[in-house]
């Protein structure tokens, strides 16, 4: 084993803790994602050469940004020379670089928000927003993102290239939206974060129920957003993710099978995450400007704080779903509410609501509609109808543990 190298460690530390901030600031200074990425690699390469000679700078981040910027200017000069362009246009481009105090703490923090809002700009395709955010904001490698989303790496790389090209060509600005647009635009950012979390928590396809890395990236991202922009629903979303995360260890059995909420070992739920989540919910509720994520988090908190499924306050949960329905009239929320109603009033009442949703022609091809119907029919002893519903749910699910669960239930009928 080679002897420990403190300089190498310092460079690695700087990469881990500062590379996203450095990148975010370089994008602003250079006005281009690709140029900023090249400049950042050059800056870290320079750190590996110079820090052993000159020592680790007092402010590594400022050193890296400044070095990256000079490297970019050099690169531009070289390019211009090879392209034999006139000197004035080179000077113009370089001159356009903001000479003002870029390194003060506030503008650097703003750069991180600028990067997040730009990656989640609604003019980019939703899957491109997700890929770009994971690549640029979280710093995941293209191959890692591709693996997590079960997408071929070249497809994912192409998605990122197209998104960056659209940002450049259509001139999507690198800025934090104005107050008037902030709520809508933050909504888009939170959607991306929650999508990443869910992809990691309840993978929509594939062999494993959870793809933990994506969930922890989403939580990390959620923390950054709350730190930079403590808006109520950003806080609510972080709480919601933490409360879901607190149950992760109990959601699957040792053999990888799905364990329902009512059967989970509640002593294994992560109390630290639960109490952090509950504190955040209180903070969000106190603003009186909270939205759907906060209410969903409150529902998760009721589950988290009750000692068993039977002891759960289902009336409170139905009440929270009523509040949620006021904010967002999606049929998925109505379906979840139906399950809570069934717990409070009995399976027949729940089934009536589910059937009404289906009769309206909604959620007919949603696997969880049929799984919920099947469970309610089973509890009512209507075995033939339950069997048909389980079979319908099975035909729609693409997730292996869910398939095994449904098959087990079907076998028990």
């Amino acid at each position, binding site marked *: 084993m080679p002897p420990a190298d403190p300089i190498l460690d310092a460079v690695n530390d700087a990469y881990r803790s500062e590379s996203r901030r450095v990148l975010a600031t370089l994008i602003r200074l250079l006005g281009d994602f690709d140029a900023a990425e090249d400049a950042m690699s050059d800056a870290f390469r320079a750190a590996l050469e110079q820090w052993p000679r000159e020592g680790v700078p007092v402010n590594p981040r400022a050193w890296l940004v400044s070095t990256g910027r000079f490297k970019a200017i050099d690169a531009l000069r070289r390019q211009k020379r090879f392209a034999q362009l006139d000197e004035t246009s080179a000077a113009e481009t370089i001159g356009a670089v903001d000479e003002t105090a870029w390194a003060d703490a506030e503008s650097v923090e703003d750069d991180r928000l600028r990067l997040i809002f730009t990656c989640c700009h609604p003019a980019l395709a939703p899957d491109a927003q997700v890929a770009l955010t994971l690549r640029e904001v979280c710093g995941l490698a293209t191959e890692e993102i591709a693996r997590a989303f079960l997408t071929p790496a070249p497809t994912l790389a192409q998605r990122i290239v197209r998104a960056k090209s659209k940002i450049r060509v259509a*001139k999507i*600005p690198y800025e934090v939206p104005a107050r008037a647009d902030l709520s809508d635009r933050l909504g888009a950012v939170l959607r991306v974060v929650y999508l990443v979390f869910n992809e990691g928590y309840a993978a929509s396809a594939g062999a494993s129920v959870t793809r933990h890395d994506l969930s922890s990236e989403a939580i990390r991202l959620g923390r950054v957003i709350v730190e930079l922009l403590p808006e109520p629903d950003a806080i609510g979303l972080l709480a919601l993710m933490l409360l879901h995360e607190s149950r992760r260890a109990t959601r699957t059995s040792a053999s990888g099978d799905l364990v329902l909420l009512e059967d989970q070992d509640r002593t294994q739920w992560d109390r630290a995450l639960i109490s952090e989540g509950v504190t955040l919910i209180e903070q969000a509720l106190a603003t009186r400007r909270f939205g759907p994520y906060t209410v969903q988090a409150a529902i998760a908190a009721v589950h988290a704080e009750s000692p068993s499924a039977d002891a759960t306050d289902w009336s409170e949960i139905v009440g929270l779903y009523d509040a949620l329905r006021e904010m967002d009239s999606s049929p998925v929320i109505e379906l979840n509410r139906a399950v809570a109603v069934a717990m409070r009033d009995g399976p027949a009442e729940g089934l009536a609501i589910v059937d009404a949703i289906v009769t309206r022609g909604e959620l007919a091809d949603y696997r969880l509609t049929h799984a919920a119907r099947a469970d309610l029919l089973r509890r009512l002893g209507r075995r033939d109808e339950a069997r048909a519903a389980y079979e319908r749910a099975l035909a729609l699910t693409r997730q292996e543990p869910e398939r095994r669960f449904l098959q087990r239930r079907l076998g028990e009928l």
Partner: protein
Amino acid sequence: MKYLCLVYLEAAKMRAVPDTECRACAEGFRSRGVMVAAEALQPVETATTVRIRNGQLSVTDGPFAETKEQLAGFYLLEARDLNEAIQAAAKIPPAREGSIEVRPVRDLDV
């Protein structure tokens, strides 16, 4: 930077927005200094498609492709960036009846 805002409407809705409203919108853009050009178009039935293949001129009736929505008009606007262009496009009255495609203008590589 220039953005071309292409207005698309279904055939049945080509006249759904009163002309006076479109005129007022254009005047608004002009007074704010963002207007480069804007025109409404005659319906797609009046369109003619021109091609040259193997040096031969071919003229055919109608548009290139059958789609539900058709090009009803355009605004060529000056905007600082896409956000500003989107804000302007949202003020074009047919946005509520059909859709507005916002395309950045490309400088020719010459």
